[in-house]
């Protein structure tokens, strides 16, 4: 019987030993496998203007008002993303810290500055980004963040814990910088000047200390004084300023915004206040309305139909000198520090009492005028006595914060944070809110919309704490 009609097998060729050795075939020829920390630092620092020049916070506090697309001024957006900051500069800075902390890897980076200095600078810059994130979102992933594969689901830390962590980090960075010399490379912000980095760290710490004045005054006072004695910015020459270049990759973001449309005008509450007080900063902050040869603010909170019905020539747009390709971005300024000192003196955190507070207040305004290049002694002497400006006992906080708000025109996030803390100037919420906002004006950014789907358990845990993930939920330091 011939059951099997055909039978064929091609047998295996025995594996030869070199089958699994491919040499360098899989080494990526398109991207470097090694890094120099100066290039990481430059990459991270390039993200600073994106924070300061973002428009949403400055809309909330009615420094800016749109001429066309008013939806964001009317609280359309609830969820905002911090993803680009964590996966971007924070991770690049973390890599600098990692490379300088690993004895096997650190040697290769010595050409970019001492390991301690590189770490201190990276920590200061990280603190800057984290401070913005926590001030905007409240409780955030912090202690478990940036750990890559070790933790794909970072929990949210309470804002108080984030603040305590940042106070420690900035203190550590400042003292490391104080006791060292030399320079670092790749520093496009402060050109390798480690003393400036020390002032930056201490000034941030001072800003943070005042931020918690309503919730933890004792801690705030201690941190404020420690920052002050460690040395803060003490003149406009020491301002932390990001310099823009004229190429498209590095130019000022406001210049980009005006390349394709005329949308951002100066909001009416600000222009009215500047006009009322005859403040020369209006000539920098705003362009004259073409049809009127005067400074005219754009009403805030209009519907798109209403805003569109106002001719472009009838309102003042964002000042021309502030939106050149190389217009600088101010990060932390002397006037900011002086306003902080004025408030600290008023609160009794530092010595000098009411007299010192008043002097710091005047100096802060003067420093702001000087920063914007409009200082004139005679004008200033008149200005400082105007009803809406002059130092009035019992209205110190209101005065300080009205003027601080004016001085922070190009730094929306800081203006928003200080407005939330002080509630000055008094602002009228948009009459056309797209989303209901129980606080009138938004006081927080909602978490990125992906948190519930990608990090659900931790998101639910933070919701338990804060109640709702919305723009009208106050952050820890904002008690009312």
């Amino acid at each position: 019987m011939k059951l099997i009609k055909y039978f064929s097998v091609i047998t295996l060729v025995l594996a030869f030993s070199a089958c699994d050795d491919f040499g360098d075939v899989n080494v990526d020829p398109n991207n470097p496998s090694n890094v120099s920390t100066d290039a990481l630092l430059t990459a991270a620092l390039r993200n600073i203007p994106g924070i300061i020049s973002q428009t949403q916070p400055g809309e909330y506090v009615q420094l800016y008002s749109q001429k066309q697309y008013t939806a964001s001024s009317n609280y359309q957006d609830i969820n905002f993303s911090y993803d680009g900051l964590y996966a971007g500069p924070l991770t690049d800075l973390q890599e600098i810290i990692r490379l300088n902390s690993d004895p096997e890897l650190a040697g290769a980076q010595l050409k970019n500055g001492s390991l301690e200095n590189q770490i201190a600078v990276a920590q200061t810059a990280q603190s800057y980004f984290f401070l913005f994130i926590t001030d905007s979102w409240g409780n955030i992933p912090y202690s478990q963040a940036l750990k890559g594969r070790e933790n794909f689901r970072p929990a949210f830390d309470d804002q108080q814990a984030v603040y305590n962590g940042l106070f420690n980090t900035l203190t550590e960075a400042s003292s490391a910088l104080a006791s060292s010399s030399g320079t670092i490379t790749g520093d496009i912000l402060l050109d390798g000047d480690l003393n400036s980095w020390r002032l930056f760290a201490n000034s941030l710490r001072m800003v943070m200390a005042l931020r918690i004045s309503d919730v933890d005054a004792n801690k705030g006072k201690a941190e404020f004084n420690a920052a002050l004695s460690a040395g803060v910015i003490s003149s406009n020459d020491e301002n932390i300023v990001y310099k823009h270049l004229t190429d498209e990759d590095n130019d000022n973001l406001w210049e980009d915004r005006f390349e394709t449309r005329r949308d951002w005008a100066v909001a009416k509450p600000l222009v009215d206040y500047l006009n009322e007080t005859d403040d020369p900063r209006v000539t920098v902050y705003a362009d004259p309305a073409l049809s009127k040869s005067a400074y005219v603010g754009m009403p805030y909170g209009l519907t798109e139909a209403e805003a569109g019905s106002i001719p472009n020539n009838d309102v003042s747009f964002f000042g021309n000198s502030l939106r050149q390709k190389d217009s600088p971005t101010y990060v932390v300024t002397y006037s900011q520090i002086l306003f902080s000192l004025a408030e600290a003196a008023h609160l009794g955190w530092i010595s000098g009492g009411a007299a010192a507070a008043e002097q710091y207040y005047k100096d802060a305004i003067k420093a702001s005028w000087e920063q914007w290049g409009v200082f004139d002694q005679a004008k200033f002497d008149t200005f400082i006595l105007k009803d809406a400006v002059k130092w009035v006992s019992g209205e110190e906080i209101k005065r300080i914060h009205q003027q601080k708000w004016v001085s922070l025109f190009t730094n929306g996030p800081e203006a928003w944070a200080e407005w939330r803390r002080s509630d000055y100037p008094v602002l009228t919420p948009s009459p056309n809110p797209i989303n209901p906002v129980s606080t009138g004006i938004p006081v927080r950014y909602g978490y990125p919309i992906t948190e519930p789907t990608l990090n659900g358990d931790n998101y639910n845990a933070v919701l338990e704490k804060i109640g709702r993930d919305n723009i009208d939920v106050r952050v820890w330091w904002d008690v009312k």
Partner: protein
Amino acid sequence: MDRPNVSQQTFSKEVRSVYGRGSLGFNDFAYLDFSIRNDWSSALPANDNSYLYPMIGASFVFSELLPANKVVSFGKVRYSYAQVGSDLDAHQINPIYSAGAFYGANATLSVPNTLRNENLVPQLTSTHEVGLEMKFLRNRIGFDLTYYTDVNENQILQLTVPATSGYSVAIINAGKITREGVELQLNLTPVKTRDFNWDLTFNWAANTSKVEELADGLDNRQLGTSPFGPTLNAKVGEEWGTLIGRAFRRDENGNRLVGANGRFLFDNNVNLGSVLPDYTGGMINTFNFKGVQLRAALDYQKGGLFYSTSSMFNSYSGLGIQTVGLNDKGVPKRDPVSAGGGVKADGVFQGGEPNNVYLEADAYYKSLFRLSENWIYDASFLKLREVSLGYNFNPKKLGLGFATKLNIALVGRNLLFFGKDTKGIGFDPSEAENFDPNTGGNSIGWFEGGQLPQTRAIGFNISLGF
């Protein structure tokens, strides 16, 4: 002049394989096929770049054993078990840095958003498949039924992770993904005479896929995002294909809620349903009459959702047809509310009273922006994809002695479309965009991101054979 941006990339990958196969046949009715293969891939980590995978298949033509009859002309059962190992694209293992724009003379390098993985192992899919193929009445009726189930282990995925980890995507070996499906093909020849032939082919398919396990600590895999719309997700323990996005807030009775300002209230991150169809398929009818051939191809899908960006923007911008016309008071919507115009959102206040606030038309339609639930449609459709009418000429008679065959056909494509839920939005869900990464064999259109609609085409097809 700014610095020009120039980029050039090269990729290299080598796979070395050893392969063996064999067949056994027994009396023309039982067959056994087997093969075994080992691959070594340069794209995998050097210490784990070898993977071996076998296949075995048996088929049994049982009709050979039946007594001669006029009913069953062919019958075969088959079973196969196959494993397929695979690697990944080149250069995805070793950590790299990505170069960004210069700042003056300062170069920039960043840690990339995708976290590479030096500990990947090859992925392996194991499939069981059984099938039954039968033909009746001298092949006039036939069907081929297939059931398959596969298990995909250690699948290499680009997994979206919370960016707070420092990365937005991690390359991982995912735990376990299972899939099962049924496919049916019917072949009929309802009429067969000397001059006239009618052939019909009908296809039907359904499948599901479930994520059994992901990597440690992860319970959701985001498969894709759509412009200003929902995300597509696969959750551990669930079928893949869940749309998650913004939905109307509703009361206990299912009414949409509006705020005091007359605008819809909404919630984020709501499960909006599945993009997976219940089934899909097609039908091809071919008629031949004395050299004239008429052929018609139909496609269909039942169930599944898709999201339309264009629809949302047509409404937002006032270009859509729904933004004109009369409101429920019989007044043009676009007239001011003060003149009786405007639109009233179809909902109730939180207390339960019906909404009575009219919004200006532009405010109303803009308020639906990003409200994904409103822009999700049932993707069920029936589509006449192609009809052709042709004739086989005798080339010799036409003096084209050099040719042996000449066919001229009138062909129409995209001729008719019936969408269950897509009236007025002008979009054909059969053209929706696929989600791209790691489809794992599950590719389904689930959103329309503003692409141009496919046009109807009518033309001639001339084919000449030599």
